[in-house]
């Protein structure tokens, strides 16, 4: 299979101050070398929408604070490589504070 140059990240968004309910935004992510979910999220925050709330700290699987759901499965954003379109959601949707950040993190 040929490697994709641009993948689509479907991302859970929720700002309790202005949104009545959560929705998904789709972002085009240019793949530039092997990238993890955190690289895609950082790409959006630095190039598209700086208000995207998520947690990244150690970037290498130590702190375990970047737990999210990738295609429904709980994963660390910093160690999960992506090569194809994917969906990212908070670990516990019912406990979301803003976007991908939820209470239990």
């Amino acid at each position, binding site marked *: 299979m040929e490697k994709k140059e641009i993948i689509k990240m479907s991302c859970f968004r929720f*700002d*309790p*101050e*202005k949104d009545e309910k959560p929705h998904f935004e789709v972002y085009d992510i240019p793949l*530039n*070398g*092997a*990238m*993890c979910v955190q*690289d895609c999220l950082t790409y959006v*925050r*630095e190039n598209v*929408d*700086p*208000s*995207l*709330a998520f947690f*990244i*700290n*150690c*970037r*290498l*699987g*130590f*702190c*375990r*604070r970047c737990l999210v759901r990738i295609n429904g499965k709980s994963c*660390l954003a910093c*160690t999960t*490589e992506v090569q194809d379109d994917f969906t990212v959601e908070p670990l516990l949707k019912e406990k979301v*504070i*803003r*976007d991908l*950040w939820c209470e239990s993190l």
Partner: protein
Amino acid sequence: MEDLCDKIISTDILIVGSEGAGGHAAIEASKSGADILIITKGKIGQCGASQMAGADFNVDGLGGRELGFEGDERDSPDLFFETLVREGLYLGNQKMLEKYVEYAPKAMKDLIDWGMKVYSYESAHTEEMARGIISSGILWVATIRKKVKELKIPILEDTMVVDLLTNEGKIVGAVALDIVSGEIIVIKCKAVILATGGWHKAYAFNTGPEDLTGDGVAMAYRVGAELISMEMVQFCPVTMVWPPKDKGSIILYIIKEVDPFGKTIKLLNKNGERFMENYDSTNLEQSTKEIVSIASQLEIEEGRGSPHGGVFFSLKHTRKRFMDMLIKVANHRIKNEMKDTRYEFTTLLPELLEMMKTEDAEVGNGAHYMGGGVKINENTETTIPGLFAAGECTGGMWGAVRVASACTEAGVQGKIAGELAPKYIKTVTQGDLNIAQVKEIINRMNGPLLREVGITPNELQLKMHKISGEKIGLIKNGKDLEEGVAEIEKLLNVDLQKLYVSSSKNKTLNFEFFRAIELRNMLTCLYLSAKTSLLREESRGEFYRKDYTFTDNDKWLKTIVIKRKDGKTEIKFETPTITKISLPSGKLTYQEAIGVATASLKRD
């Protein structure tokens, strides 16, 4: 005061930072019965640099034996001290180093008593003596977290201390921001222990976690504390530069240090040349950390680097059978013997080794350890009464090279601060807060939220990283530093004042809002580092000037101390504090100086 902030809290001792230094300080201070509060930017056990440490701790060989390890009977505290002074190229504070050696076994004993698992005892820095106790960062911080919870020490997590409050030059409190709720908290206290780590994030390429933004160093500077050795920034060679998912990992550096495997690797430039032959033909890739990093950076800057700005880490010359064996041994040791669960070891390393059967890895020099910071004495006191500091946010102990374990430094200084801050608070009463100072801090903090146009934190960060990468990096020179100082000064005085939160004014988990505060701190540290780098007209240890390559013991056995007074930076030069070892004289080439300092190392 109530109308300025959302919450007011009182405590005796505020500890800023919760990990190797701050957590240790809190546990020690709690023995005194003093009222203490930890404020940490992340969650305890899941933030800061400690979790990512290798982690090796150091104690002298006799101290090691007393702790029940194999130790080394040839060693003594005096010999360990002598190594630290010599290999730090004599710029270290000898009183602080004596305290480091004395307290290293005590801090280690604490951690063992609190239940920290130890993997092994071995020579960690290829010293002549066995002085290393090997554990891991995550075992270390989990131990501290457990103890802090057990002692029920109050802690505010995901909260960032923004600035310190003083009255008549003494500490009276601090202002903090709850990152999750956006609430502003004013803390009244008699003493503060800073344990906030380094300012790695001022560099685009670094080995630290996201929260290392120099907060403690910059806020201490803003209340007039002296800083020291800000020019000493250690860059770690053989840090992964590519691909993005591995960037910043030092796993290959760790592997390079493992005997005998380390000797099989080759560092190559883009022409396939084993360039270490030109810099240290005897020791090659096994040369000192400083020489390997400077050599590879010179190759990169002279256009012989790899496509993504590094050099090549190559194992292609080895046989497939060797690589298969290596992967098997590594897997066995990590998974079965150490039962290590760290991603870098269990997943990243085997993947990289598999890849390196056919491809080379790309590695470079990531900003790794800050040798400079808040100036403290051997009792962890800063020059501001009531302000203590511990761990990487402090400066001056090591001199020109971080010779031994920074984990041990965190524990030692944390323990000392935790012993002495409770004594200090008994000698003072709670001072009044200066309302005007609180107002100014809060207004400045809210500025970016109120502005509707200007420069975004992302834009300012990009500008900062471009300057730090191009002009204030590992290989320094006067012209670049001069420009770097002027450019960072402009970012501080002009751009920072125009900073605005562009995307959302909701203060809950607002990345742009707290990054704006952090940028001020990173720019402050970077500015002071560039300014002091420009002054030091020599090369020494981790500090390298291409225009002054000599190590000049006649002129430059001096530390640079910098502080803010009446809105301006004030600089002075101080001869390092001496106890037992007198300072050498003479001018040596950079390699000679390192060669003399490390002559006793066994490399075979």
